[in-house]
């Protein structure tokens, strides 16, 4: 009991101290080799599955290619925008929720992977050695959760807009939670739990307003798409 209270207190302290935050991805060289290999191995099956699905999807015609480019571009825009947050530091949204709703989680893995390569090579943001881990958090865990939440909520009869909002918002948030866990696994210090809290203190609170923004933007974009016949195939696919 005392221990949980102590942990909660620590969490509060970490959350309330305004601290500069590194954007999102794990920096180049900041994961020990064994974890680099571990996350690469975990991520590769998702990527392969994604590439296979992407090939099928793209073969569906020029409309599909345009929609794929659109979903990828949405991730490109949102993950380039470093926004200020209530903690007095900056972070950026992921943009992967929309693609997950349109194409499912695995194609989104490929789209996110492409963005991460661009940022690692040209922006020194993230890294090649940490690419597997970063792809897992942003392009596997986030989209999977977003997709699952959307499916679950719509099946349960929840309002469509609320389902989209929660899916995109929580998909964004979980990306950062997974990053915290990845760092804590690699650098547990004395206690893994405390370590997770420390890294979440850096990420989570900053991310909350950004995740809400991403949720709203996803709802607006999704609704805009649903007004057009040409986009209906994908917009409706998410609803079955």
């Amino acid at each position, binding site marked *: 009991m005392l221990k949980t209270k102590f942990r909660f207190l620590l969490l509060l302290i970490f959350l309330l101290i305004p601290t*500069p935050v590194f954007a999102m991805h794990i920096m180049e*060289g900041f994961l020990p080799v064994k974890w680099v290999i571990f996350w690469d191995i975990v991520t590769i099956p998702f990527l392969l599955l994604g590439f296979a699905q992407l090939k099928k999807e793209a073969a569906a015609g020029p409309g599909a290619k345009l929609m794929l480019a659109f979903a*990828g*571009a949405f991730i490109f825009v949102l993950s380039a925008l470093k926004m200020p947050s209530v903690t007095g530091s900056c972070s950026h949204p992921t943009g992967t929720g929309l693609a997950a709703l349109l194409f499912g989680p695995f194609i989104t893995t490929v789209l996110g992977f492409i963005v991460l390569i*661009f940022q690692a090579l040209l*922006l020194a943001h993230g890294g090649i050695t940490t690419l597997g881990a970063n792809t897992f958090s942003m392009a596997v865990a986030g989209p999977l959760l977003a997709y699952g939440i959307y499916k679950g909520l719509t099946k349960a009869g929840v309002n469509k*807009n609320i389902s989209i909002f929660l899916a995109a918002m929580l998909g964004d948030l979980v990306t950062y939670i997974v990053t915290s866990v990845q760092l804590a696994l690699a650098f547990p210090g004395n206690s893994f739990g405390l370590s997770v809290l420390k890294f979440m203190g*850096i990420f989570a609170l900053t991310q909350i307003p950004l995740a809400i923004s991403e949720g709203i933007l996803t709802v607006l974009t999704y609704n805009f798409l649903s007004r*057009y016949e040409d986009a209906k195939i994908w917009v409706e696919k998410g609803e079955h």
Partner: protein
Amino acid sequence: MKTFTNIILIILVVALIAVPMFLVKGEFSGADDLASQVIEKQDPAYKPWFSPIWEPPSGEIESFLFALQAALGAGVVGFYLGYLKGKKEGKNVNRNLGLSNSFKEN
């Protein structure tokens, strides 16, 4: 959704960004330093074993590349949304003129 709701939502997004920008006093750095500081505390012996192959030579170049990323993305997003709208309107025009729908097959 109604236009009114959409406008409210857009204002909300702007507010979520603007309020911290104007009301919160902070450094607003996206400093990679802090995480590396925490890592240093957790495991003082750890040395990053790989450094970026290429780094933007200055903050200006870095913001250029980030702006480029956003611009490329926004360009494609705008192109597609305009394409959807134009195609729909083209169909309507054809229907009104009583022409056969040449866009239908796409």
